[in-house]
């Protein structure tokens, strides 16, 4: 098989992902409702892909398309059900009878803090986020979280001033804002979590002496001569250094 065939075949196999799905290839369909209007879409697509198939071109409500950025928050209800559900449009397959609305922002307030000057003490959470004391433990935030985090538990940990627990429980937060939108106590959970993680990252560990020394060595010019020599070398000499370095790597990276 020639090279051209290979690349052509790959492009052909990927065409539905790159150029959008073709109607003739679709075997299974679903009816979804976008802002009240019904659209028939391929049942295999995510909510985001299905809306694009239906003709919507995203400006808001679409970011990384891979579940990391929290831009595509979606609230939906299924036909015949009364409950409102939440999802990330890029990570959720469409279902028959979905009534959808996109929520590009949660218009929440963020208190400002100065990481240098804020005291690493139990009461810091309440000083910046007094509203967390109003938490009624209804667990609505946890149910709303598309990352399946234990949101209510980290708010309770914040009330106790437990920076470590807040950091661990909230680490995978993509800051989509669904928790804040659903909370009856008007708590902005993801900002509470951000504050807790930053404080723990800054003050929860002892300063790293090895890193500090490396930085001060660099500033003192400890490596300047070595670099000066390296930059002068020709390609063959550099290739040799590289090969030697790689040949000896096992004793340093074993047990990776």
């Amino acid at each position, binding site marked *: 098989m020639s090279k051209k065939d290979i690349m052509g*075949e790959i492009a052909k196999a990927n065409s539905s992902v790159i150029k959008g799905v073709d109607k003739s290839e679709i075997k299974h369909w679903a009816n979804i409702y976008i802002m009240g209007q019904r659209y028939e879409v391929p049942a295999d697509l995510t909510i985001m892909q299905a809306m694009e198939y239906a003709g919507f071109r995203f400006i808001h409500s679409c970011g990384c398309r*891979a579940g990391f950025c929290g831009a595509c928050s979606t609230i939906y209800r299924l036909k015949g059900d009364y409950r409102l559900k939440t999802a990330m449009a890029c990570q959720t397959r469409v279902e028959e009878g979905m009534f959808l609305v996109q929520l590009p922002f949660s218009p929440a307030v963020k208190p400002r803090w100065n990481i240098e000057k804020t005291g690493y003490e139990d009461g810091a959470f309440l000083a910046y986020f007094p509203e967390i004391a109003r938490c009624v433990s209804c667990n609505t935030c946890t149910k709303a979280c598309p990352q399946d985090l234990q949101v209510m538990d980290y708010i309770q940990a914040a009330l106790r001033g437990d920076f470590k627990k807040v950091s661990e429980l909230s680490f995978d937060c993509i800051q989509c804002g669904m928790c804040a939108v659903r909370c009856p106590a008007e708590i902005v959970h993801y900002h509470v979590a951000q504050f807790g993680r930053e404080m723990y990252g800054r003050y929860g560990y002892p300063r*790293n002496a090895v890193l*500090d020394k490396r930085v001060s060595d660099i500033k003192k010019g400890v490596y300047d001569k070595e670099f000066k020599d*390296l930059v002068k070398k020709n390609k063959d000499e550099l290739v040799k250094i590289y090969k030697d370095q790689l040949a000896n790597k096992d004793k340093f990276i074993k047990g990776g």
Partner: protein
Amino acid sequence: MGEEYKLIGGYPKSMRESIKKVEATRSKRLKTSVPAMSLAARDDVLNLCHPDYHKEGKRALKIGVNKGDLAPSEVADLIEAHPLIDTRSVDLKKIDIDTDILIIGGGLAGTSAALLANDNGIPVERILLVNKLRHGDSNSIMAQGGTQVADSKEDSPPIHFIDALGGGHFTNKPDVLKALVSEAPVALQWMTGLGVLFDRMEDGDFVRLPGGGTSRKRMHACKDYTGMEELRVLRDEFRNRKIPCLEFNPVVELLTDPGTGKVTGAVLWEMETGEYKIVRSRITILATGGFGRLHIRGFPTTNHYGATNDGVVLAYRTGAKLRDTDTVQYHPTGAAYPQQIVGLLLTEKLRSMGGQPVNVNGDAFVYPLEPRDVEASAFIKECYVNGLGVDTPTGMKGVWLDTPLIDLIKGKGAIENSFPGMVRMFKRFGIDMIKDPVLVFPTLHYQNGGVETDPEGRTNIEGLLVAGEVSGGVHGKNRLMGNSTLDCIVFGRISGATAAEYIKKHKENGDLSFKHLERYGKELKEAGIKTERRAPILLPEYRGKAVLQRILDIF
């Protein structure tokens, strides 16, 4: 619903049959592994199967500073195109925003630049960060594996330098690479000071892992959410300082002084309302990221929605020099199934921790940690030359990445603890990657080249700095894992400091004009390029064909 639609643990029957073969060979593969390729064997597979070694996908640029240089056709199409706006309908006399430093792009590079400009004495109200989408919607936030920093006792910046130089086939700009590796420990100290939570051991020391092409353990990760954690902390600091920021306002053209050619501002276009704004700046930092959404050679991509090469297109029109435009990085392990997540990144760390590539028969066929270009080519060969790939229901092919091996090697719970993001993503589509392998195929990942930079972030055009993926030179023709987030943070910081110094020395504003576009238009004409194409494209087009064919543009 039909028979073929029924899935067992997320997979159709045909793929389940292949998984049984993978399971049958697993215990044997635990003890043996395919040896690494010789340099000659690497060259063979690259020549046969790597998209970059296939000249038909590229062409020589017909105009501009880099005339004659090869670039992917998709990139050349955007360079050889007309401006997006009709300049006659834009009034440059009314300046809407007057600032000292304009930063274009809000990923790790742009955000770091804003913070360092402020640290170096520029008041926040004299800085403006503009974004095409939201602040943080970027490739940075999607980075999983880690950030390389030579901070351990057995490591050093010169060792890091040599690893990156070899990985880049000795084509990196040495002075720029030296700045990258020397500033890496400084950047790590800065990030931990702002509260970035890197993976730590019980005693508080950093967890360090090896990556493809590193001779030391140098990867600093935040689980598999490294870029997200770094970005959300830096962005929060940015917000705490109240640095001005505009979202959904892409730059559609840069402005230049008609006399000196210096970059003096930009035209913003508010996506929601269609209104334009004129920004005058004394220095501009371009941090617009890469080009994955151009789907070079028809590949799916790991990149975010806005990765459309805007920065390179805009800078090139002002006369900025590019380099290494001929190379594209394909990541070996993009998701190949299910259809909903095709192309999304499965971090190299999965192979660092023991995951093995396996074909349809359950046989290992390649050393798991070859350089990215070699590994990707071997996957393509297995699928399209040897015919031993796994077919998906939508006609794609892929090879298995045997993830259950990781728990067997590293102990139960290793996958869940190290890859919560990946486990979650597959679980959403009914697949348990702790029990079952996942299907992978190479995906378009990174723009190796870009606007040529010097160690201070400067380009050949006065008033225009670059940082991050849009820049070219630091990685040469191939980037190693963990050097991209590092590039963004280090050169974001450096460009912010360079900009601040520049502002202190240059008090004059230049005039605003589109003069560079007149020259560009003339070049297009003289090169005989007759085209309707306009650039930058800002966003890719994924709307259904059926709809696009029947759109009436009347409102």
